[in-house]
């Protein structure tokens, strides 16, 4: 009798917490930063609503089968892929995410690490079915959204322990920005880092040799590009209406799956917002 009453009360409180959880914030402001794969193509002529809708269906399906965590360029990520030729049929690689490219199902991210003194960069496609697990060991951002310059930086900036324990990010707090300024090796470099406006490089312009600075007028004075509003509109692929609809679609997909009882996994998450 008493056990039954206790059981009933337990069920009631569980239902209450579930009801509270469903009254979540229905839209995230940082959606284009957390889910850059759901944005339309940066190439204007390749944007097709039907193509995007079909891709989105496949992307949401995949996200229901594997947990794709939130990570940014500058976060330390561990990826476990399935390898048919290894004794343990798995291979795990840990590295810092240096870039995230391509829209939709093609979305790729590159991890960099220094293994036995040799710099290694591995590119993974986010929706590759042979990926077994993606874990964010350390969630943080950097001063740039493209860390390709680490290839010319001193090795200590790209070395990360393969056995790094995951550092939990307190949910609800903003994602920390790591403002390290990286020291580059002696020039010449693989790319002209001194010409770009990378905030995360320490004194690139001062290190570059005079030969590379000879056409300063044409090459260096590029500050006007940040004022080009329509170039930014085309390249950043952000449209408030599109993002709102995509988020609604995600929540609807989640709801349908949860109701059918197949899984309780959630797709629309934000570490900073706590949902």
């Amino acid at each position: 009798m008493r056990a039954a009453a206790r059981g009933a009360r337990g069920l009631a409180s569980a239902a209450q917490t579930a009801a509270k959880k469903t009254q979540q914030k229905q839209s995230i402001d940082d959606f284009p930063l957390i889910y850059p794969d759901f944005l339309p193509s940066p190439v204007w002529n390749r944007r097709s609503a039907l193509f995007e809708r079909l891709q989105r269906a496949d992307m949401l399906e995949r996200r229901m089968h594997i947990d794709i965590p939130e990570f940014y360029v500058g976060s330390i990520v561990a990826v476990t892929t399935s390898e048919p030729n290894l004794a343990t049929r798995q291979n795990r690689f840990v590295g810092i995410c240096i870039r995230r490219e391509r829209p939709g199902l093609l979305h790729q991210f590159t991890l960099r690490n220094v293994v036995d003194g040799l710099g290694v960069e591995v590119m993974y496609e986010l929706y590759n079915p042979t990926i077994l697990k993606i874990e964010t060991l350390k969630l943080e951002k950097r001063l740039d959204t493209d860390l390709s310059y680490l290839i010319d930086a001193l090795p200590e900036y790209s070395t990360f322990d393969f056995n790094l324990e995951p550092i939990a990010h307190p949910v609800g707090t903003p994602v920390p920005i790591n403002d390290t300024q990286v020291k580059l090796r002696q020039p010449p470099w693989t790319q002209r880092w001194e010409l770009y406006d990378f905030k995360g490089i320490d004194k690139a312009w001062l290190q570059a040799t005079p030969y590379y600075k000879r056409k300063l007028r044409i090459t260096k004075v590029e500050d006007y590009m940040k004022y080009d509003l329509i170039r930014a509109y085309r390249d950043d692929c952000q449209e408030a209406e599109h993002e709102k609809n995509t988020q609604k679609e995600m929540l609807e997909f989640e709801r349908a799956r949860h109701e059918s009882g197949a899984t309780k996994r959630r797709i629309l998450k934000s570490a900073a917002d706590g949902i």
Partner: protein
Amino acid sequence: MAHRIVPSLPRIKVPIGHIPQRLKARPFEAPQGRLEVLRQFVTRLVREERIEMKANRAEETRPYIERLIQLGVFRGMNDDYTQEMMQWWLLEKDLVDKMEHVIVPRFQEAPINEPYTNLFNLPFTRYENRVRGKRIHYNARPLAVIEIKGNPYPEIGA
């Protein structure tokens, strides 16, 4: 390199070309010449609210002025990014005040699916381009009128 600005602004409701047009003007050198030319047009448009120019340039200017108004309406004039853009795009600084007190409040309650500007195409016109002493150079182009909606002039096409 370039960080995305969040929260995102709505879609720009006017047609935008898939590649930017090359705009030439004598005192400005490429490639930043294009933006300098557009800056002049945007400043003139905010000052006079209805201007006439070559049709291809009017089409190029239209999305820029739309975006500038959207920045004011959706991000607010007190935002750092909005202020930076306004200060750069509007060469005459009293126009920043005009944007804040006249133009942005005009579109605060506007329906979200309509553009803030109108573009009317005029016929092919032959006009005086440059006068050098006794020599007058003519040019023949299709022109267009671009105007910010809600301006005090009588309506076109009425």
